[in-house]
């Protein structure tokens, strides 16, 4: 047999096959993971969720003391005490037992029905929403919600990019899939264990009912009521009661004296409520703006809040599982691509096509 110097023999050629170039693993799941991760990072930034959620958390904390059964009962009792004091004054006036003129007491007697009506409505609105408030306050702290989007989003985006590169090299990228899966499970866990689904229906009625109350105009109106009440109490305390007692020792002053004995805690509670309302107008506006950020989609953000975590989480989890099977091995007995190639027809010149 003649040999050509420098060229491999046929036996050498078939016994030292070149490894087949790796077949790329599926890359589209990683593209999906990257897209989901980017959306999860960009959505809270684009909707201003970070500061708005922090303000929402501050508002929920600030209103905690005023959303209890005992607190609301206390305010209703305070209104009843004022009601009784006003009735007492009107009775004295009607019986001619009010000596002299008392402008501030007269203003209280004149304005109190409106004050009572207005404040009763406000306290009623608060009472009606106690359950809604409790559901919302049972949610994971509002300030953390945007982070629970952004942090899994960063993990997904990073794992997606690195996994994509591994997939290009024909690898399974199991480590990056695992990271992405953990982030996806976290996203699924947030609404399920964070109480978002029970809270979702509670947010909208709470917002609707508090919207007319938590405004600067409303606070200014309450401040005006406060001035009327404290001015009247000052006059009752400093001049009125003594004058009536002097002129009519047998006059009934029960309503007024009850007001005097309960005045300090009453004014403290009322001042605290007005202060909390005033200090949370901006926080409430931020919560409303956050809820309205998804209005173009046809629903309030709080209604869809749980799904905003759950849906991307499920998609991301599915994407991490997809393509986990090993790349399909080439067909053929020898099991090598080269063997297949060797069986391929050759050109007359001996070159493979």
């Amino acid at each position, binding site marked *: 047999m003649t040999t050509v110097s420098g060229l491999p023999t046929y036996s050498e050629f078939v016994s030292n096959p070149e490894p087949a170039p790796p077949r790329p693993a599926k890359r589209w799941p990683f593209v999906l993971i990257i897209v989901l991760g980017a959306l999860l990072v960009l959505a809270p930034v684009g909707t201003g969720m*970070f*500061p708005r*959620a*922090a*303000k929402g*958390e*501050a508002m929920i904390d600030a209103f905690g003391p005023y959303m209890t059964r005992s607190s609301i009962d206390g305010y209703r009792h305070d209104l009843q005490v004022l009601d009784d004091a006003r009735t007492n004054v009107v009775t004295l006036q009607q019986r001619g037992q009010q000596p002299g003129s008392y402008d*501030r007491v007269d203003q209280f007697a004149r304005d109190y029905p409106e004050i009572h009506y207005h404040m009763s409505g406000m306290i009623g609105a608060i009472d009606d929403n106690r359950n809604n408030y409790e559901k919302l306050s049972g949610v994971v702290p509002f*300030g*953390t919600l*945007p*982070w629970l989007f952004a942090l899994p989003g960063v993990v997904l985006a990073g794992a997606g990019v690195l996994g994509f590169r591994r997939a290009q090299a024909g690898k399974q990228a199991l480590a990056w899939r695992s990271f992405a899966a953990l982030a996806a499970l976290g996203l699924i866990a947030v609404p399920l264990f964070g109480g978002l689904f029970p809270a979702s229906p509670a947010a909208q009625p709470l917002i609707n009912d508090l919207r007319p109350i938590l405004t600067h105009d409303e*606070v*200014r109106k309450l*401040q005006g009521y*406060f*001035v009327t009440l*404290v*001015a009247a*109490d*000052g*006059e*009752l*305390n*400093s*001049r009125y009661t003594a004058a009536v007692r002097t002129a009519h020792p047998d006059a009934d002053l029960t309503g007024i004296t009850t007001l*005097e004995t309960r*005045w*300090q*805690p009453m*004014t*403290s509670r*009322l*001042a*605290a409520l*007005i*202060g909390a309302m*005033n*200090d949370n107008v*901006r*926080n409430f506006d931020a919560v409303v703006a956050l809820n309205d950020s998804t209005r173009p989609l046809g629903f309030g953000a709080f209604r869809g809040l749980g799904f905003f975590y759950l849906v991307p989480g499920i998609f991301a989890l599915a994407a991490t599982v997809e393509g986990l099977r090993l790349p399909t091995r080439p067909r053929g007995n020898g099991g090598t691509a080269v063997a297949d190639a060797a069986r391929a027809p050759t050109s007359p010149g001996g070159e493979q096509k």
Partner: protein
Amino acid sequence: MSARQLIAVTMLAALALVVSGCSSGDDASSSSGPEPLVGLLRFTPGSVSGDSVAGTWFRMVQPGGTPDKGPYMPNGDSPAQGGSTTLLEPGTAGGLRTGGYQSEPKPGFAQGNSLSASITKPTKFFAVEFGISTNPVDPQTQRRVPPPTVTNDGGKLTADVSSWAASWNDQEFNQGAPKPPEKQDAQVAGAEQVQKVWDWVAKQWFDKPTSDAAQGPSATGSYDAKTRKFTLQWTSLIVGGPFNGFTGVWHLEGVFEPAAAAPNSPAPSVK
């Protein structure tokens, strides 16, 4: 030049130097410039005579009103000017210390009545006593504020009383001048720590003012160096809380007693 002439010229030159030295000393004493008044501003108690008030007093202007014409919040417990003015009496320290704090005791209230009794005697305001304190961190705004300082410049006083804090019915109200910024909004989780780091870096590297810096007009007044009598007054808008938008009008009057800077420790609780 002869020796006699030389001696004469030298003496004249020496005399000129002495005279010029004396005259420069006189200039310095006549325009010594602003001087801090460190010590106690001992208050004269508020008093009323007919429709006029004297001494130390306070008014509260309702939103939309003016410090001169009101409408004022009528204090039913005050006999002065139909309740529009509340007269104040000196507290346990006798008045306001400069160069140090007279902090709010802890607890600060008993049944809504303020226990801050060092600067002024707790005074009834709608049947509940209010008190005054000065604190390193303002109780309402939670901002760092400097201790009160008063500067006399030829009989005109300028004062930083940004730490002046009123407490009433379990509520805190900054009533300082200049005003510290209002209480900071809710912060994004983690942002405060980043801000602190940035503030530290900014102060260290760029010498920037802190965000707590008070703004607006200072308190002003008059001072008689001979009698040491002073007046000090200012207005301060309430920002936040139940009296948001109301304005406090403060008038302090009394005699200045120089002393070392007051200690910064909180005032002992009273009652």
